[in-house]
């Protein structure tokens, strides 16, 4: 329900434009999702656990992350990863009486080894980070879920996964165990990038094409933010789980990229690389 827009300077011109929304949905009594969108760190945590422990777990994880990563300055991949380990330890301590855990997924602007800015993406669990290129979403994270395992081994298809009895079982989380294995990726920070970070309450209610349509058709001058539009659509579609979304847009357009030739926003280049000879 929070709405945040970053206001501090980014290393590359303006800070990203950010819209955020986290909502209870229509069925749950408690919002077990927690979000953080404070330059340079953007995170979604989807808590779980009996007896309403999930909201405590996700909130605790976000608190620890917020305390570990100072606002307004780019951080480093190493600090980010250390913060996730600290969050795991903190949530694990909560579990003394009752087990609890949370997904923790998101990205931060970090300083690369060459001194330039880059994104570092971290993921534990089945919340997701997508990149949006204006036409299609690409999932950057890999879910730590049973169905993802089964998809990877060819046991089931992505379609079957949606109905699979294990669809809500994740294989990694922040908190249940003393240690946690974290997926980490780095990617370039550039003008004109758009990313979506969301909990499964969004992706389980809305097919990917629907999310893409909403992103593509959202008017900049609309009353509601992009995140509002996405979350509202998920709630209308059922809202069976808590729904959280963060949409991040770096300033400028792709054509402004440093040293860029402007070619990258030609539509065909937004697709994957073309086979030689066809281009």
């Amino acid at each position, binding site marked *: 329900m929070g709405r945040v827009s970053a206001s501090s300077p980014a290393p590359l011109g303006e800070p990203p434009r950010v819209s955020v929304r986290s909502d209870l949905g229509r069925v749950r009594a408690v919002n077990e999702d927690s979000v953080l969108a404070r330059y340079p760190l953007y995170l979604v945590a989807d808590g*779980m*656990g*009996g*007896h309403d422990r999930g909201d405590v777990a996700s909130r605790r994880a976000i608190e620890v992350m917020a305390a570990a990563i100072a606002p307004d300055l780019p951080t480093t*991949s*190493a600090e980010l990863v250390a913060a996730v380990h600290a969050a795991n330890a903190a949530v694990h301590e909560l579990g003394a*009486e*009752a*087990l609890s*855990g949370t997904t923790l997924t998101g990205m931060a602007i970090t300083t690369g*080894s*060459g*001194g330039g800015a*880059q994104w*570092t993406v971290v993921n534990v*669990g*089945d919340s997701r980070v997508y990149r949006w290129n204006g036409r299609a979403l690409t999932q*950057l994270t*890999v879910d*730590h879920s*049973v169905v*993802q*395992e*089964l998809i*990877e*081994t060819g*046991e089931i298809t992505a379609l079957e996964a949606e109905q*699979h*009895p*294990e669809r*809500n*079982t*994740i*294989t*990694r*989380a922040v908190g*249940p*165990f003393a*240690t946690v*294995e974290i*997926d*980490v*990726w*780095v*990617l*370039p920070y550039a003008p004109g990038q758009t990313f979506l970070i969301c909990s499964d309450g969004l992706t*389980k209610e809305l097919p990917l094409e629907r999310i893409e349509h909403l992103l593509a058709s959202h008017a900049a001058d609309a009353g509601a933010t992009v995140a509002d539009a996405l979350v509202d659509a998920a709630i209308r579609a059922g809202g*069976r789980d808590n729904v959280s979304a963060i949409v991040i847009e770096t300033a400028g357009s792709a054509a402004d990229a440093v*040293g*860029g*030739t402007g*070619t*990258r926003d030609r539509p*065909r280049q937004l697709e*994957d*690389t*073309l*086979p*030689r000879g066809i*281009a």
Partner: protein
Amino acid sequence: MTARVVAAPAGRWLAVVGASGALLVEGGADRADELLAALGAGDPVQPVLDVLAGSGLGDVPDFALVLTDPAGRPRHAVVRGAPVVRIPGLDELTGHGARTWREHEAVGTAAVLLAPGAGDGPLLPLERGAALSGRIELTATDAAATTPEPIVEPAPEPAPVDAPAAAPAPPPPAIAPSPVPLPEHTMVEPEEGGFGYDRLFESTIVRPVEEAAIRPVAEEDEAEAPPAAAALIAAAPAPVGPEDDGDHDGETVLSGSIPGRAERPRPAAHEVAAVAATRRFALVLPGDRREPIVGELVIGRAPTARVVDGRTPRLVELDGDPDVSRSHVRVALEGDTVVVTDLRSRNGTNVVLPGKPPQLLRADEPTPVIPGTVVDLGATQLRIEEDTESVPEGATA
């Protein structure tokens, strides 16, 4: 136990998987049958060593042997020479410091046996047999072992054999209680404070993959909520009820890959990269931009790289060449050698060693190159040069 081997030969390394463990041995192909038989023994260490030391202790090849318990969990490792064994949560197990071999307690839920120079490739299941490969990944199939549910009381319900014999005796009671006997395990109470029946209400629960991935779906449906909750509690290293009924293993689906494991770069890479390099190299990009080759560079149109063990690869963006894939090629310093790996790029990568014809790299296969080599990405060429100047500060990965 679920065993997988990487589908790429590494020198003469042979991967052998048997009932009691897995073995990686250099040049063992001529003794594969004997080794396979030895790995079927209850305690295969002696039989395996007997085969390997058949022509005298001095001739024992390098090897790594991991023994597993009936649930497929690693429990003991023997390593000689170059290969290593990795078990999550333990230091790397090596043969360092021993003239013969070293034995290690090696208790865990998964293990990777790795020969030097092992390539990357698809991981193929190998239940029992031998293959030319430098990498074996073992994953325990211990759902049965770590969930309390299957402490199988040998199913009271069916007793089909003597039923006919005794048939006349028990006339089916007319008061027929539900004809479908409730399976024993659904009676298990979910643990207080666990995730209980959450899963039935679209709640997310967590279960470590080692046990999550292998339970057959059909059984899952019956056993649903309670084992899920229980599995979490028992999840950790979880000691076992001794009676692992082998019958779960029969159902094992080959999904043993632990996320993240398969994508890990060849361990040989960071191993050696950690050692201070005495030679320095640079990658010369279009426009004479020079990137020192320190650690790992990932080069592409919009590169994305995975961070492993805190080593962040350096991203090198190439603008303006549509033939270049987002993440096209990896260039890394391993020890004193520059290694080039095509990252499954759409249009492929050629390397041209000085005075040699171009060589198309196979995807994901690290290839050592020498100074003067040109890495050809299509319209873009990169050149490997030896750097005589010192590496600038801050260039360390």
